[in-house]
């Protein structure tokens, strides 16, 4: 089963056909100058599988009378038919061939591989030259049709990498896609990485040969019943290994296909090969021709570069260029343990980008970078799961789960934990004799700690992975009216925060698995169970909004005076900025605004008013192209802002606009909730939204305009999601009335949605 056998088979067919051709020509006294026999398609490339049709084109120069030509063709084909050979033939002149090719995409593609077998050699060569010339000349027009046919085929035949019974030829990532890519490569419009496809094609062809041999037919669908026999014939350990290799090959094809279309879409009037203008979007990272690229001249020894580039690409909905991914792989440096906070956030921002993430993740995975960052990944990579519920291999299922989880980030307080749990919830699969949920819990804790999550967070991730099937299993199998059922789940889950994460994970996991595993019927049962467990846990728990900043007595005394002071302390890759300022209306929005226009990205903040002053601690990351201001500079900027001398609104509008020029991804809309907190006698406003420049400025300004005081704020950025908690009081000092709180939340939400 290999290239050699296919070549031998093709050569043998050539000899047989050539013999028959010459004897038929002699029989009907047809000059070998006026006709020729050629092979097209796969046979044209000299590759013949055991069950493949002989695709032949009989060319003639128009000088032979129609009757005689028909008799000649019959004499050529009858011996083949009698020998039970499947032949796909056509008889045409050079001009007819050209017309047919211009009308039929498949004919045009097949002709690109035309090969002379017998008769008039020049005739075949002219047709080959026409075919290639026309294909190149008309490609711009043919492109849309070609793409539509590829998409239509994928919809009809599914994806080779993920189907249980895929079609080796027709499925997405299969042999026909490879041919389409080969045809695109011949146009020289864009580079197509055909060398990446060589081993994939060789494998898929061998599997098809084995399938034809096993079934004795020419069908290309790899049915479950035949997978064992095919695996045995090809000397794979078992059918799982076979399907793993098929999935791997199909994914390589998929990846090149996506990339090629992306490149075709971005061929400007000039050639793709000409240098495109690039724009820097981060340290050592640019956007070139709508692909995110890593600067070759940059610091490639920076271990955090890869995930940073990936996060930027995914969040902008752009692919990571293949050259950059290869560059990253070639210059791979292990990340420190634990990972820096920014790298963990980059991972979260990558996973949280929704459907746009898959392409970027796939690129990293193709270069085996994911398993270098997370070694546990290697075991589930391309891992088939041969059961009726699943559509996808384990790794792809987890990616699909993460895509769904990204839509549910507003339903939880810790979107970062939800996304990481979604990406790794089945990491314990494929270990003989181990329950995948239990083993997954053992695996994920060390992974979480390596990523730099706290012990508490690692515990939550462990609980999520261990119990990711708990809600759906319990909801359908246990009596929800029985208090013991509720107690049992509550004990396993522990607290309301983990419960909301587990609920979101169950929904994402179910939706990603498919309709058989997740129906509205099941969703309603799971929601019912969750709400009962939630009520039970809330009754017992002391869950509170994010706690306010703690200050020592000495600090409190300084804050009370309210004299402006600024200190900046570098901490790893972020700056810690401590500010004491006189308390005044709009203080938070002014300072958030100053930081934003100084090109600092707020990662987290805690602020608290006390007496005449307010204390604030900010952690900010500096923009790629910005310099850190000195304490004096920042001090003077803040002083000006507090005097109203900086046109903050206009400047921030400018920043938001310049941020908007990048293509974005679809994100769930912002959610604002208000609740009264008895302990602090304040109203707590919680804002959950996708992060972008100036969020805090906008939020704080809107709240101040509403005529309430911001007593304290806790700002957190988790990957690409912002989670802000603000304690506000009415002018008289107490919590807002319920109606006013709801009105404020509503106004704020509308403002954030429309902005």
């Amino acid at each position, binding site marked *: 089963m290999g290239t050699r056998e296919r070549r031998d088979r093709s050569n043998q067919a050539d000899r047989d056909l050539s013999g028959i051709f010459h004897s038929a020509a002699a029989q009907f006294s047809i000059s070998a100058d006026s006709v020729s026999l050629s092979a097209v398609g796969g046979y044209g490339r000299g590759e013949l599988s055991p069950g493949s049709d002989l695709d032949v084109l009989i060319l003639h120069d128009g000088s032979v009378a129609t009757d005689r030509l028909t008799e000649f063709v019959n004499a050529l084909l009858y011996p083949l038919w009698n020998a039970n050979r499947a032949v796909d033939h056509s008889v045409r002149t050079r001009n007819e061939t050209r017309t047919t090719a211009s009308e039929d995409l498949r004919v045009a593609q097949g002709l690109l591989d035309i090969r002379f077998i017998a008769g008039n050699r020049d005739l075949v060569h002219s047709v080959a030259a026409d075919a290639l010339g026309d294909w190149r000349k008309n490609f711009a027009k043919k492109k849309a049709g070609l793409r539509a046919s590829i998409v239509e085929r994928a919809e009809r035949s599914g994806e080779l990498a993920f189907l249980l019974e895929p079609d080796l030829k027709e499925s997405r990532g299969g042999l026909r896609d490879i041919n389409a890519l080969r045809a695109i490569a011949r146009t020289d419009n864009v580079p197509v990485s055909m060398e990446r496809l060589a081993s994939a094609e060789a494998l898929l062809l061998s599997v098809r040969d084995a399938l034809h041999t096993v079934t004795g037919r020419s069908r290309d669908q790899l049915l479950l019943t035949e997978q064992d026999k095919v695996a045995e014939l090809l000397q794979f350990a078992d059918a799982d290994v076979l399907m793993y290799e098929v999935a791997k090959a199909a994914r390589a094809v998929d990846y090149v296909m996506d990339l090629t279309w992306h490149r075709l879409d971005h061929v400007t009037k000039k050639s793709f090969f000409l240098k495109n203008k690039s724009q820097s979007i981060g340290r050592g990272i640019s956007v070139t021709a709508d692909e995110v690229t890593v600067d070759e001249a940059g610091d490639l020894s920076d271990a955090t570069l890869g995930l940073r580039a990936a996060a930027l690409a995914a969040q902008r909905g752009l692919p990571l260029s293949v050259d950059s991914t290869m560059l990253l792989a070639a210059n791979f440096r292990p990340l420190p343990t634990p990972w820096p906070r920014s790298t963990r956030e980059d991972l979260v921002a990558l996973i949280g980008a929704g459907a746009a993430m898959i392409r970027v993740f796939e690129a990293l995975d193709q270069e085996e970078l994911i398993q270098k960052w997370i070694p546990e990944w290697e075991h589930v990579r391309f891992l088939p799961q041969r059961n009726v519920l699943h559509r996808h291999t384990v790794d792809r299922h987890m990616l699909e789960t993460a895509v769904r989880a990204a839509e549910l980030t507003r339903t939880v307080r810790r979107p970062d934990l939800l996304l990481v749990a979604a990406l790794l919830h089945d990491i314990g699969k494929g270990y003989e004799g181990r329950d995948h949920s239990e083993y997954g819990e053992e695996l994920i804790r060390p992974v979480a700690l390596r990523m730099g999550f706290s012990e508490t967070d690692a515990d939550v991730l462990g609980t999520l992975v261990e119990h990711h099937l708990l809600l759906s299993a319990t*909801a*359908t*199998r246990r*009596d929800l009216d029985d208090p013991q059922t509720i107690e049992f789940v509550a004990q396993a889950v522990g607290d309301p925060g983990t419960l*909301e994460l587990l609920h979101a994970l169950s929904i994402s996991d179910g939706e990603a698995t498919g309709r058989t595993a997740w129906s509205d*019927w099941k969703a309603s049962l799971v929601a*019912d169970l969750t709400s009962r467990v*939630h009520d039970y846990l809330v009754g017992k728990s002391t869950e509170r909004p994010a706690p306010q900043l703690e200050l020592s007595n000495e600090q409190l005394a300084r804050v009370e005076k309210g004299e402006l002071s600024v200190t900046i302390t570098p901490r790893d890759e972020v700056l810690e900025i401590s500010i004491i300022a006189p308390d005044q209306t709009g203080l938070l929005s002014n300072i958030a605004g100053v930081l934003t226009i100084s090109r600092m990205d707020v990662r987290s903040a805690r602020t608290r008013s006390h007496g005449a002053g307010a204390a604030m601690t900010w952690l900010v990351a500096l923009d790629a192209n910005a310099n850190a201001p000195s304490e004096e500079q920042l001090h003077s900027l803040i002083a000006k802002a507090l005097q109203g001398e900086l046109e903050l609104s206009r400047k921030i509008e400018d920043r938001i606009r310049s941020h908007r020029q990048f293509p974005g991804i679809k994100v769930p809309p912002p959610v604002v909730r208000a609740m009264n907190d008895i302990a602090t006698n304040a109203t707590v406003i919680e804002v959950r939204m996708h992060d972008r420049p100036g969020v805090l400025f906008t939020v704080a300004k809107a709240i101040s305009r509403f005529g309430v005081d911001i007593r304290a704020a806790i700002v957190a950025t988790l990957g690409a999601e912002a989670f802000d908690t603000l304690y506000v009081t009415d002018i008289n000092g107490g919590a807002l009335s319920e109606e006013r709180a709801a009105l404020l939340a509503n106004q704020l939400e509308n403002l954030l949605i429309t902005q």
Partner: protein
Amino acid sequence: MKLITAIIKPFKLDDVKAALQAFGITGMTVSEASGFGRQRGHTEVYRGAEYTVDLVPKVRLEVLVDSGEAEKVIDVIVKAASTGSIGDGKVWSTPIDNVVRVRTGERGPDAI
């Protein structure tokens, strides 16, 4: 021949299945169903979002049996599915003209 159809609480499926198997029933069809009877739908408030559960999730189970066994099978199902509380479901039987086993072409009681 009779077709016994049972609408039961989802979590009772395993019990009913086990009881029917113990009785000697070898085949059944199970599907997800929603509906309401005396146990009306109710309104849930979950994390601020209100949603109406007007249809309660149930499991629908169908078994083909010989007419002589129908009453006994109904008893087995009722016993196994009962919790005594509202919403336990219903069981009914329908007369059946003919049954064919697709693989062998057997007809009537032989096909059950």
